[in-house]
């Protein structure tokens, strides 16, 4: 298309850059300039991070639903188990898988910031980083769960896991009833991101 016309185009960027973005850019420039990081490394890391998705975690959960021995290994050492299915969350931060059962329901929060098992779930959802979720998850977990549509029986113990340090927690939700005939691949499609944060439970689709 030609640009031989008489109206003016607005510049593409009219919104001022947010302060955090400017700060990150300045930090990146400094780190590259001082030789701490190479720009390639930064881009590779970003590419890797955004290529991760809840489908990775779902693969682990589905395997654990069909293979008891694998589930034991997943709960004992999540990285070793992930390596078995061709996923590598890396040595740090350490990933720990927590199993939801008939009597225990885990949900994960990071009250200090937004720590999240990115290596197995990809980037966290916006609400996970929000102040209301981070503050209410540890003071009114059942209320928060109800708002997510999860209404647990009174005799189920809710364990809110606050990832305050070097561990990232992955919830292994319960396998839904009525899925006995489903394949591992079909089961993986039932495992949602939110169920691996512990604010949803997987449902068998008809």
């Amino acid at each position: 298309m030609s640009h031989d016309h008489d109206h003016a185009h607005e510049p593409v960027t009219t919104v001022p850059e947010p302060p955090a973005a400017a700060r990150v850019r300045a930090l990146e420039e400094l780190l590259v300039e001082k030789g701490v990081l190479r720009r390639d490394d930064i881009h590779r890391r970003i590419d890797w991070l955004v290529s991760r998705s809840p489908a990775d975690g779902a693969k682990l959960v589905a395997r654990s639903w069909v293979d008891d021995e694998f589930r034991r290994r997943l709960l004992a050492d999540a990285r070793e188990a992930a390596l078995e299915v061709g996923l590598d969350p890396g040595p740090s931060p350490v990933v720990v898988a927590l199993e939801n059962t008939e009597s225990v329901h885990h949900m994960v929060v990071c009250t200090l910031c937004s720590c999240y098992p990115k290596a197995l779930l990809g980037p966290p959802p916006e609400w996970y980083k929000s102040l209301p979720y981070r503050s209410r998850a540890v003071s009114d977990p059942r209320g928060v769960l109800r708002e997510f549509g999860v209404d647990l029986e009174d005799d189920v113990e809710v364990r809110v896991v606050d990832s305050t340090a070097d561990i990232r927690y992955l919830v292994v939700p319960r396998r839904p009833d009525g899925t006995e005939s489903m394949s591992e691949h079909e089961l993986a499609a039932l495992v949602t991101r939110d169920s691996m944060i512990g604010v949803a439970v997987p449902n068998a689709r008809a």
Partner: protein
Amino acid sequence: MTFAPGDAVRVSTRPHDGHHRTPAYLKGRVGTIHRLHGGFRNPETRAYAGDGLPEQQLYLVRFGLDDGDCVLADVFEHWLERAT
């Protein structure tokens, strides 16, 4: 390591300037050791270009909520005191 699963611990209330990973809502609270994660570098010096050594033991500590529910949070050993 100083603590074992089941031990009662209190989170220190000592003042601390600068980066640390002990949430304010747990300071002064009594909980029980739920799990030992092992040694990790100290974020309080790592945050300021230090090496974070010596490593500190990191524990998953259980804090009771109403109705038998609980918060499980990771707390470094140097923030824990033995409670009775």
